[in-house]
């Protein structure tokens, strides 16, 4: 009996230790899940991070891994200045941000500021966002994310834009004025002229486009298709996206778009077009083997990797017969303040500092290489494509990114595939228009 009691006491102690281990790690670490027993109901529980109750550091989940370092440097400066500690946690490079955040929420470990990427994410997270309309910066930008009832809930930290990025040196050598690239005919003339001089210009093809559906669906299905949705329209004009959400498309406009895509695909490097990755596409253009690439100002940081010497700029993907003078520029993602966090005011103060002070602007524009969405920003960008984009933003020649409001995953699961078939020549213009229409209608219906 005595012996048994001993054995049992030890076993019991082991069990307690293993359970208590779960408990303490949740309290101190703040990253692990909560204690074992509460696993089941976590997802519904009103939760507050354990980490927060200890110190008053605010925690940001940032979705752009590229700007991790500059942000951390700024956070450090901010702490020296105000004593407020800011922890930056950067996700990206293939990490499923939404999935990670859902895990954080379930574990009661939500950050004070979190990133979200547009309409779809907003629908998922809207119950957890703080109204930021009263903030000073909200009135100084037109890029803030607004909820259905017009309240600003998303903090914009960068403007990105894209269209057809061109190699200015090649265009000059071929005698083409970039300013003429504002209509379908303008592009057609330019492509033909460059194609004739391909040999002497050292080009292997005119354009660098990638339309493979497994990995490049975001470029075709989101970015290029984005021009169909909002190219040439006023900011806030939601005609075509509203149509798309109800499963319809405009055949006339889609036809024009299809014509332009055909033109683009015809003058593209074939292998890259149907099997290339983003790196292949970029390398082709950055090594000076093509004149155009269908990417935006986010390739700026990669240019030094290829030691790009030529000048470059962004032109609109003008698929219409009428002139289209602007490019699609908008915020790729926003930061929201978690409304059940303990430091909402500290978060607001930090955002204000980042948006409106010179150090903050310096961080976003110079260090991160982005364009500030704020009208009061005096710092100007130094990288070539950002500078080119800035001229559009300053002139008010931009169209909004309505494609971010498309049903989630549509480019990957539906439209991207149609682009690939079109690029491979398996369907013609009518096939493209019809198939696109059925693909969208089917996807919306489900």
């Amino acid at each position, binding site marked *: 009996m005595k012996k048994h009691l001993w054995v049992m006491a030890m076993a019991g102690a082991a069990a307690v230790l293993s359970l208590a281990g779960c408990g303490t790690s949740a309290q101190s670490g703040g990253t692990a899940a909560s204690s074992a027993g509460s696993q089941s109901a976590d997802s519904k529980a009103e939760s507050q991070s354990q980490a927060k109750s200890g110190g008053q550091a605010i925690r940001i989940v940032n979705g752009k891994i590229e700007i991790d370092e500059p942000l951390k440097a700024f956070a450090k400066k901010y702490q020296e200045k105000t004593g407020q500690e800011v922890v930056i946690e950067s996700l990206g490079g293939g990490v499923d941000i939404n999935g990670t955040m859902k895990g954080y*929420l379930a574990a009661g470990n939500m950050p004070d500021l979190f990133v979200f990427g547009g309409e*779809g994410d907003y629908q998922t997270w809207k119950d957890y966002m703080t109204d930021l309309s009263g903030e000073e910066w909200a009135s100084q930008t037109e890029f803030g994310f607004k909820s259905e009832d017009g309240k600003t809930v998303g903090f914009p930290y960068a403007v990105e834009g894209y269209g057809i990025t061109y190699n200015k040196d090649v265009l000059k050598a071929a005698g083409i004025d970039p300013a003429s690239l504002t209509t379908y005919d303008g592009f057609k003339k330019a492509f033909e002229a460059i194609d004739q001089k391909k040999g002497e210009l050292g080009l292997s093809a005119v354009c660098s486009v990638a339309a493979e*559906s497994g990995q490049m669906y975001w470029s075709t299905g989101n970015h290029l298709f984005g021009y169909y949705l909002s190219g040439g329209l006023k900011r806030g004009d939601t005609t075509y996206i509203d149509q798309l959400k109800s499963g319809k498309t405009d055949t006339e406009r889609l036809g024009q778009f299809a014509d332009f895509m055909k033109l683009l695909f015809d003058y593209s490097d074939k292998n890259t077009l149907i*099997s290339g990755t983003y790196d292949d596409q970029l390398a082709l253009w950055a090594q000076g083997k093509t004149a155009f690439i269908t990417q935006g100002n986010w390739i700026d940081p990669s240019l030094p990797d290829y030691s790009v010497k030529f000048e470059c700029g962004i032109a609109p993907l003008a698929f219409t017969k009428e002139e289209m003078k602007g490019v699609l520029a908008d915020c790729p993602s926003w930061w929201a303040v978690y409304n059940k966090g303990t430091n909402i005011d500290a978060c607001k103060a930090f955002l204000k500092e980042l948006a409106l002070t010179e150090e903050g602007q310096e961080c976003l524009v110079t260090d991160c290489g982005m364009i500030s969405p704020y009208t009061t920003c005096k710092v100007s960008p130094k990288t070539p494509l950002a500078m080119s984009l800035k001229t559009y933003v300053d002139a008010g020649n931009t169209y909004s990114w309505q494609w971010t409001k498309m049903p989630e995953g549509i480019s990957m*699961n539906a439209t991207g595939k149609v682009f690939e078939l079109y690029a491979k020549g398996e369907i013609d213009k009518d096939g493209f228009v019809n198939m696109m229409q059925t693909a969208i209608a089917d996807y919306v219906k489900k």
Partner: protein
Amino acid sequence: MEGKAKKITTYLPAAIGAAMVCCGLYFDFYNRDFWGRGPLLAGGLLLLVISLYLVPGKKHRVIVNGLFLLPLIGAFFITVLIPFIFGIFYSFTDWNGIKFTQFVGLKNYGQMFHAPDYLYSLLITFLFTVFNMVSVNIAAFFLAILCTSGVKGRNFYRASFFLPNLIGGIVLGYVWQFIFNKVFTSLVAGSVSMLTSPNLAFFAILIVSTWQYAGYIMMIYVTGLQGVPRDILEASAVDGAGALKTLLHIKLPMIANTFTVCIFLTLVNSFKQFDLNYAITNGAPSRILGAKAVASTEFLALNIYNTAIARNRYAEGQTKAVVFFLILAAVSLTQVSISKKREVEL
């Protein structure tokens, strides 16, 4: 009198323990900031166990054994069983990864079988499973024969055939994607990548999968072949059996159970194929199927992943995963029972 005291010592800890567990659970759900919830829960459980032990009876040994098993069982419950049960539960709701608002009954299940992309994935996964099972086992078996045949440097072969299995599927996938897209197209000038044609892309995945997995299965066959008793082999040699006859009539029946294991492993593994599929094609290229575009190489696991992650339809993805589990369980149990029967016959 003594009996009463004993009763109190038995039931008092039980009552206190139960109360503590309840409090601990309450704090876990509704008041997470309270630091004592962990100790409360653990202490309560401990008291419960002690009271269980104090109950007169002969089962003390079982309780002690159970306690020692607790950490393992607990881990298994938390990481496997509870999520599994919750998964089944969520498949009947409109769960979006955060919360659910209503029960939808069998709607998810019904909807799934009307989705052409899912049915296509199902078909192509079955095809892939059959092809891959055959090709991996044939390749592995011949490699195993090579490695047990007494050829020079067989240990080197064994190690090098096994090596691909040690590299992660994602890495392998991207390496092979590069090979298909760049190396092969430059070797044969003017050719386009295998990954751009729906049928060839399917075989591209098959090639890589076989290349990766055959080495592993080979090891099992090698072990089986080495386990064939020497005396039987010698007896057959004395009787004048050639190499082929020995293989067909001695070795094959002797390693029938190895076949069962290997076929089971390849079956389950091919059916669950995800990482190579994700890295090499991610569903591309597209195939025209009745005026619609479908992803030609999107296997079931990838389809589930895309439904849940890319389309943000967690409940639907969960439903597909439940069906995936059922199919996989049915197919593999059938296979094992058939193979077992054959083993006896042989």
